[in-house]
Each structure stands twice: as C-alpha cells, then as structure tokens.
C-alpha cells in the first residue's frame, strides 16, 4: 500500500466561512476528502465553489474555520508543497532564473548547488534563451512555464496548481498540458490541480472530483482509468475519454445551473 494508495492528505469536515461586509459566506462546507500519495487529482466545479479556497488552505495561505487537515508526507525533509498560482505570480523584479531559483534560495540552498536544477527545469520548459529576461519581456504562456518550473525546481512533496493555464489561449494550453505531463510523470509527486475545464481534468488526472456550487461540497468522484504515459492529442479521440467527459459533464451541469440560478 504505497504509491497512489497511501493517504497523504486527509480533510475531515473542513469548513471555511468568510466575513464579507459583516455577512457570512460559506465557501466550503464539511468537506471530507482523501488525497493519495503520488496521484494527480483534478478538482472541477462551477466558479465560486471554493476550489481556490481549498487549495489555499492546503498551501497554508488560508486557515479553515473548522475541521481538520492531516498531512503525512512521504519525505519530510522536502518542502511540503509548492503552488502554481492562477494569473501572474512571477516577481517582476526578478529574471526567469531568479524566479525559478526562488524556493531553493529561500530554503538556503547554495547557488552552486541549485544552478543545475534551475537550468534543468528552465531547459525542460524550453526557456533557456530567456533565462536572463524579466517577466514583462515574456508572453503569457512563457510566464506560466516559468511558474511551473519554479514549483518543480523547489522539489516539493505536493504540487498545488490553481487553474494555472486558465488565462492562456487554447494552443498554449495544449502545449503546457503536454509539458506538465512530461515533467510530472516519473516524479511521483502528488498533484492537486484546480480547473474549470473537463478536458484538462481528463487529460491530466488520475481522479476527478466534482464540487458543488456554493457552499463547496463533494458531489462526485470519478476515476480516470486512461493509460499513462498520456498523449494529449490522441487521448481526445479515445472512446473512454468521451464517455468520461459526458459523465463528468452530467454532474457538473446541474451545479452550473444551480450556481447560475443562485445569483
């Protein structure tokens, strides 16, 4: 009972309530969830269902109002998690190289020890030519590649990805999904990936969770039994892919309609 069987994160009745203008808004309500060591978990849900809140709680950027989050890392000496943020999160005042090295530098790794790792991930993302460029000199797709490289270079136990490709155009999204798969497969890292795209969830995930519209609860869990390593293009033509897509959409559709009528 190890890879993809051992629980690495367990959420027990996690609730998050925000105070918005002296009104209580429940973002997540009594969420129970197990995330397995080494799995690629995708979470889909209508906008405003608390997906990002959930991820921010896991990242330690937000504290749940009640309930427990139990994390039991495989290799405690590694950093627990690294997040790939939604939107522009690269420091504009740092070059590509400095941005990718950020986590390692913060952990006190000496430059001579991290230079190779940084160069490796920059190279893997096809950005070697731009290692000394500043973020404003890069396109949106390139910036998000740097973001992914920064998370991987930090070598965390858990990767948290908050709609990292949401703002990209379709062509870049397909390329980045492919690159993310390439870079992730073989690392045995646990990945929690938030998305609103069913396509993306199916291409990347071992498991897809559908969340309900506010407050966020668990609606359904679908195992994605598509073989790995995956090829993003041939996958879409797979019959099983289409079946799973329809299954997830049927769950999601109800929630999207509910979310719309609630406003």
């Amino acid at each position, binding site marked *: 009972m190890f890879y993809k069987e051992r629980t690495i994160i367990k959420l027990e009745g996690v609730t998050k309530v925000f105070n918005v203008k002296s009104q209580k808004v429940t973002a997540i309500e009594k969420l129970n969830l197990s995330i397995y060591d080494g799995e690629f978990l995708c979470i889909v849900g209508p906008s405003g269902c608390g997906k990002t809140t959930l991820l921010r709680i896991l*990242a*330690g*950027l937000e504290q749940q109002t009640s309930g427990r989050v139990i994390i039991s890392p495989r290799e405690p000496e590694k*950093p627990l*998690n*690294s*997040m790939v*943020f939604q*939107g*522009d*999160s690269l*420091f*504009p*005042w*740092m070059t590509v190289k400095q941005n990718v090295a*950020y*986590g390692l530098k*913060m*952990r006190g790794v000496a430059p001579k020890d991290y230079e190779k790792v940084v160069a490796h991930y920059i190279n893997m993302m096809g950005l070697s030519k731009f290692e000394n460029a*500043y*973020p*404003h*000199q890069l396109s949106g797709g390139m910036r998000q590649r740097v973001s992914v490289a*920064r998370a991987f270079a*930090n070598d965390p136990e858990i990767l948290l990805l908050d709609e990292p490709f949401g703002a990209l155009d379709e062509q870049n999204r397909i390329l980045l999904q492919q690159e993310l798969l390439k870079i992730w497969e073989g690392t045995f890292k646990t990945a929690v990936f938030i998305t609103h795209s069913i396509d993306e969830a199916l291409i990347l995930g071992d498991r897809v969770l559908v969340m309900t519209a506010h407050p966020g609860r668990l609606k359904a869990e679908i195992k994605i039994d598509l073989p790995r390593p995956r090829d993003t293009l041939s996958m879409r033509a797979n019959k099983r892919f289409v079946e799973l897509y329809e299954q997830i959409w049927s769950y999601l559709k109800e929630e999207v309609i509910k979310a719309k009528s609630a406003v």
Partner: protein
Amino acid sequence: MNMTEEKLKIKIPREKEIKNVIVLESEENNQKRSVFGLDGIVFKICSLFSPLLILVLWELLSKLGILDIRLFSTPSLILKSMLPVVISGELFYNTFISIRRIVLGFLAGAIPGVIVGLSMGLFPLIRLVFQPIVSAVFPIPKLAIMPLILLVFGLGEVSKIFVIAMGVFFLVVINTMAGVLNIEQIYLDVAKNYGASRKDFYLTVALPGALPMIFAGFKVAMGTALLLIVAAELSAARAGIGYMIWRAYDMFDIERMFVALIMMSVLGYVFSFVIDWIERLAIPWKHN
C-alpha cells in the same frame, strides 16, 4: 414597407461603376511620415531655443527700460559678474558646502525613511504604532521647527543637515509605506508559500516591489531638500548657496543673487539627473 425590405432595394453597383476608391497607404509610401520626422527636429530645436529666447527677451526688455534693471538686471550683466565669483572659487566653495549638506541630510533622512516605511508597510502592528506619529509630525512645516533645531543643535552643520533630514524622512516614509501596501497580495502569497523568512520578505518582496514608489518619494524629497537648504542657510550660516543669496540681498547685489539662483537651478537639475540614473540601475525591470 419595413426597414429590411427597404435595405434590400438598395442597388449594389458593379465594380466599374465605383468612382470613389480609398487606398490605405503603407508606411513606406506614406508622405506624411517624413514630415513627422522633420517635426521631431523642429520640436527639439524649439525646446532648445525657448530658454534662449527668454534670455534675449529679458535682455531687450531691460535695455529698453521696460524691466527695472535694478531689480531684474540683465543676462549680460549677470554673466559679467559671474566671472569673478567663479575665478575666486567663491561660487564653487559655496556650492560644495551646500551639496555636502544636501547629500548628508538626504541620506540621513532617506535611509531610516526607507527602513521605517518598509516596516510600516509590512507589519500592521508597527503601522498602527507609527501612523499617528507620522500623521501628526508630517504636516508641521519643517521651517517652523528650524528655530527649535537651532536651539538644540546650535549653529553648526548638524542643524542644517537635520532640518533637511526631517523634511526628507517623512516624505520617504509615506511613499515607501504606500509602495509596500500597493504590492499585490499574490507576491506575498508566493513568498509565504515558498518559505520566505522575515528578512526575505524585506529583501525579496517589499523592497524591490516598493522601489518605484520609493524613487518617486526620493524625487519629491529632493525638491524639498533644495527648498530647505536655502531657508536653513538664511539663519546662522557662513557659507552655502542659500547664504550667497541672502548675502546678495543684504548688499543689494542683484547680479550675484542671480548667479546663485542659476547655481540652484543647476543643482536641482544635476540631483534629479543623478536620482534618475540610480533609479534606472536599481529598477532594471522597469526599463528596457
């Protein structure tokens, strides 16, 4: 008959029947472009000659007696009286004294200003403690406390440096704090998620993120420093550009006063040039 039917009745002309043809010219064929190029040079010449034009006008108006020559002198007389002040070294000595006071006062105000401003921006507790003090002291014109400063520090250099430092400090504090508070939350999240220590928050997020605002503060503060130096050198100074201006006033030496004023203008220009230059070095990510 409704609109659509009416529209349908419009006769579409055949290609040869069309008389008006609009062609959007390419850049290289565009005649206007060279005119704009010429305009560029014209603009430059205009901006170069406008100060000269003022000088010529000044000279003429004085010579014609429209301007009172005793009060406004003339550019040629000022130039003439500039020579002995330059040769004797008096002008440069006074300039040097003022520059030293400005630079020391500026550093003494700006460095603690950046540190306090960063702390106030980063830590709400420090902000809560210092904000009322800053709000209470900042609006007091620094010239108003000049007599108190003279009583405390005496007539020496320290009093002049201190008053400039006071003026600079508060402006830099307020700008730096605003700079930190304007840093987008996401950068603080990234720093936290990637394990930044308190020192790292200062050096990798707050300071670089606030730099554009800090430099905006420096520029305003430099203007204030120039204002304060003249006032500080009014009372109890034996040298300095401000002192020169007040001495010229005492002796009704208008030409010498203008020489000192020209030097003030040069100083202001040089200082803002230096700050711009440092800014470009410090914020390479803002300039290509």
